[in-house]
C-alpha cells in the first residue's frame, strides 16, 4: 500500500513539474560536453541572436535612416513645391518603401504590439477618405478606421495620384488650399516616423534579449512564433497581397486597383522582388547589407538533415525562391501585366512559381522542425 502511494506521489510530482509548461529554458545553458563534433544538436539560441543582431535590428535601422531621408526631402518639398523637389521626394519615398519590404515580415514583438504593418502599408488606399480628411482638417490617424488613409499607400496617392502629370500634382501643392494638403502629408509621415521609431527602440532596449532568451521549443517560443509569422508573411502578404489578389486568383476577376503602389504604377514588381529577396535572405541567415551569413532556417534544416538523411530541403527551397525570382523578373510592373493582358498569363505563371514555395515552407520545413503551424491549443494522441 505504501509503495502504491509512493508511486502515486511520484506521478503527481512529475505531473506538477510538467504541467503545461511553456518550455522556456534558461538562457546561457551549457551545451552538452559529451557530444562529439558533428553530433552536435542545433542550438536555436544562436539562430535567434543572428536574426536579431544581424538581420532584424540592422534592417530596422536602415529603415529608420530611409524614413529620416524621406522627412528631409519632404521638408525641401514643403519649402518649395517644385517638380524637381517632387522628384526627389518621390525617389526617397520609393527607396523607403523598398527598405520597408525588408522589415515588413518581422511583425513580432514591438511591431506586433504597434501593428506596424497594419499602420504603414494597407492598400489599396482610400483616396476619397484622404480627400475628405484634407478638406475637413480633422482626423485622427491613430484610429484603425484610418489605416487605409495613411502610410506608404497614402503617400503614393499624394505624390503620384493627385494629377496626371508632375506639373498637375505640383500645382495642387501650390494652390490656395495647399496648407491642408501639406499638413496632411506631414501628418502621414509623422505617424510613420513615430511608429517605426518606437519599434526600433523597443527592439534595442529590451525586446532583443527577450526574443533571444526565449529559445525553447513550444508554441510560445521565439523560433516557433517567428517561423509562423514568417510563413504567414510569405503566404498572405508577399504571395497573396502583392500578386494573388490583384491577379484575381481569389476572386475570379482581376483587380488591378489592388496592386501595391497603384498610383506610381511601375514599381510594384520591384517592391515584390525586394520582399522576396528579404524573405530568402532571412531563410539563409544572410546578414543585412553584407555578404556574410549566420545560423538560419537553412542551416537548421541542414543540421536536422544530417541525422535524417532525407531530402536536401535547404537546396529545394532556395531553388524554388530562385525560380520564383526569375519568373517575376521577366514581368513588367504588375499593373501593366494585369491591365494589358487578358488573362495575364505570364503573371499567373509567375504567381504559381511563387506559390510553390508555400507547401515547402508550410509542410516540409515546419514538419522537419516539428513546429506547428498556427498553433492549435488542443490535445493530440
Amino acid at each position, binding site marked *: 500500500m505504501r509503495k502504491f502511494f509512493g508511486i502515486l506521489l511520484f506521478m503527481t510530482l512529475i505531473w506538477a513539474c510538467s504541467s503545461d509548461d511553456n518550455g522556456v529554458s534558461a538562457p546561457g545553458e551549457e551545451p552538452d560536453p559529451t557530444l562529439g563534433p558533428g553530433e552536435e544538436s542545433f542550438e536555436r539560441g544562436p539562430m535567434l541572436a543572428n536574426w536579431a543582431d544581424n538581420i532584424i535590428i540592422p534592417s530596422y535601422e536602415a529603415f529608420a535612416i530611409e524614413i529620416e531621408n524621406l522627412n528631409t526631402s519632404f521638408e525641401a518639398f514643403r519649402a518649395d513645391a517644385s517638380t524637381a523637389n517632387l522628384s526627389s521626394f518621390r525617389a526617397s519615398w520609393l527607396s523607403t518603401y523598398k527598405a520597408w519590404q525588408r522589415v515588413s515580415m518581422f511583425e513580432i514583438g514591438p511591431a506586433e504590439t504597434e501593428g506596424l504593418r497594419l499602420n504603414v502599408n494597407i492598400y489599396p488606399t482610400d483616396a476619397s477618405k484622404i480627400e475628405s480628411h484634407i478638406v475637413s482638417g480633422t482626423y485622427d490617424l491613430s484610429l484603425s478606421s484610418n489605416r487605409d488613409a495613411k502610410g506608404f499607400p497614402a503617400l503614393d496617392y499624394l505624390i503620384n495620384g493627385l494629377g496626371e502629370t508632375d506639373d498637375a500634382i505640383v500645382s495642387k501643392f501650390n494652390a490656395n488650399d495647399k496648407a491642408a494638403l501639406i499638413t496632411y502629408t506631414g501628418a502621414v509621415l509623422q505617424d510613420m516616423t513615430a511608429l517605426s521609431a518606437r519599434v526600433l527602440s523597443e527592439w534595442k532596449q529590451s525586446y532583443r534579449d527577450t526574443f533571444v532568451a526565449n529559445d525553447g521549443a513550444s508554441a510560445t517560443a521565439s523560433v516557433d512564433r517567428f517561423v509562423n509569422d514568417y510563413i504567414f508573411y510569405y503566404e498572405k502578404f508577399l504571395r497573396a497581397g502583392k500578386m494573388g489578389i490583384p491577379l484575381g486568383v481569389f476572386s*475570379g476577376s482581376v483587380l488591378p486597383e489592388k496592386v501595391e503602389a497603384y498610383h506610381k504604377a511601375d514599381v510594384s514588381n520591384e517592391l515584390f522582388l525586394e520582399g522576396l529577396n528579404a524573405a530568402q535572405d532571412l531563410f539563409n541567415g544572410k546578414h543585412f547589407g553584407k555578404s556574410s551569413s549566420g545560423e538560419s532556417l537553412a542551416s537548421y534544416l541542414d543540421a536536422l538533415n544530417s541525422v535524417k538523411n532525407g531530402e536536401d530541403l535547404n537546396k529545394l527551397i532556395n531553388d524554388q525562391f530562385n525560380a520564383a525570382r526569375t519568373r517575376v523578373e521577366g514581368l513588367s510592373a504588375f499593373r501593366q501585366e494585369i491591365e494589358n493582358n487578358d488573362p495575364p498569363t505570364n503573371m499567373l505563371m509567375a504567381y504559381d512559381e511563387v506559390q510553390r514555395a508555400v507547401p515547402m515552407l508550410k509542410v516540409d520545413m515546419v*514538419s522537419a522542425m*516539428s513546429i506547428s503551424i498556427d498553433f*492549435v491549443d488542443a490535445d493530440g494522441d
Partner: protein
Amino acid sequence: MASFFDKHIKTPVEAAPLAVFRILFGLMMLFSIIRFWSYGWIEKLYIEPKFFFSYYGFEWVKPIGDATYFLFVLCGLSAIFVALGYKYRIAIVVFFLSFTYIELMDKTTYLNHYYFISILSFLMIFLPANAYFSLDAAKNPKKAFQYIPAWTINSIKLLLAIVYFYAGLAKLNSDWLIKAMPLKIWLPSKFDIPFMGQFLHQEWVQYAFSWFGAGYDLMIPFLLLYRKTRPFAFVLVVIFHVLTRVLFPIGMFPYVMIISTLIFFDAGLHHRLLARLGILLKVGKQKFDNQQQLVLKNEAITKFKLATVVLFFAVQLLFPFRYVLYPGELFWTEEGYRFSWRVMLMEKSGYAQFKIVNGESGRWFYVDNSDFLTPFQEKQMAFQPDFILEYAHYLKNHFQKDGHKNVQIFVDCQVALNGRLSTTFIDPNVDLAQERESFAHKNWITPFKDEIKGI
C-alpha cells in the same frame, strides 16, 4: 475449456476492483470535462467554427449552438452519478450518449483516447459496476453484491489489453522500427525538457524510444495479467505514461490509462483503497461486504446482454484490421486508420489549395481556407482524404448558393509523411464535386510513392 470458461467467465469474484474503477473513471471524466471547458475549448471547437466535419453516416450530429454547453453539463453530471454509483444504469447510458455525441460533432477533434472512452462507457452499460460501494447498493440492499461474475471485470481487462496490444502491432512497421520515425522528428524538438532534453537529438535515444515503445505496448497486457510481474508492470505503466505526458501534448490520456490499469490488481488493493475512502467519507465499507453473489438470471435480457458484449469484442478485435480490405498504403490513404489504436504513428501534414471552376464560363478562383475553417480544421483537413472531400462538397454548395453555375472543385494538395518530401496527395485533375463519400477506396488519392513495410 470448461474450466477456463468457469474461471474467467462465471466464477464469482470480488466486486471491489470494478467499484474502484467506476469511481475513478467517473472522477476522471468529470475532471476532463471541467478541464475541457476551462480551456475555452467548447467555444473554440464547437461554437466558433462555421462548418463541422462529420463522420460518414453521422452527418446529423452537429453542435447545437449555445446548447452545446448543456451537453457538457449533462456529460459532467452523469460522470458524477457514475462515480457515486447513483442511478448507475441511467447515468452511464447518459454519459455514453452525451460523450459520444460530443465526439461525433466534429471529427477534426478525433483522438483515439476519446474513442476509447466512448467504447469503454458503452461496455460499462452492461457491467454491474454499482453492485459494490455505491449509492445504489447502499439504498437498496437487494442490489448490493460483494461478488460478481468474473467476466464483468475481465471484460475491462480485455479491452485494455486490446488497446495496448493493437497499438503495439501498429508500431511493427519499417518507419517506426527501422527509421525511428516519427520520433526522430519529434524528440529533437523537445530539447528544452529538463535533464532529458539534451539526449533527445541522439539517434540511439530515438531508436531506443521507438523500440521500447513498441515492446511496451505488446508486452504490457501480459505483464499486468501475470501476478508476479504485475507490480513491475505497473511501475512501467506509470513511467511510460508520465514520459509521454512530458514529451507530448496528450492531455488526460496518460492518467486515464494509469488509473485504468489498477483493475488488473488483486481485490486486496481495492479493498484497502475503499476502506480509506470509506473513512474519509464516513461510509462504513462493511455494509457492502455482505457475502452476496450476483448471479445473472438465465433470462432473455441476460442473454441479450451477453450477446452484445460478445459482439462488441468481436468488432473490437476485427475492426482495426479492416484496412487490409483497401489497396494502397494505410498511412497515406488513412482508409481504415481511425478507431484502430494507431496512436502517435505519423508526422503527417499537408497543404490544400482548392480551385473553384465555373463549368460554364471556365472562370476560376482559389479559396482562402481561413474564410471557412478554423486553423485547427484546416490543418486536419489538409492531409485526410475524407475531410478534403467533405470540404469540397461544402465549398460546392456554398458557391452554388452564391450563384455560380456548374461548380467544379479541384484541389492542389501536397502532403509530407514521416520526414518524406511532400508530394501530390490528390489527383489535381479530378473534380471532387463529382465524387461521393463511401466505404469504397477513393481512387482519386495519388498512390504513395514510397513503401512502408509491416502491419
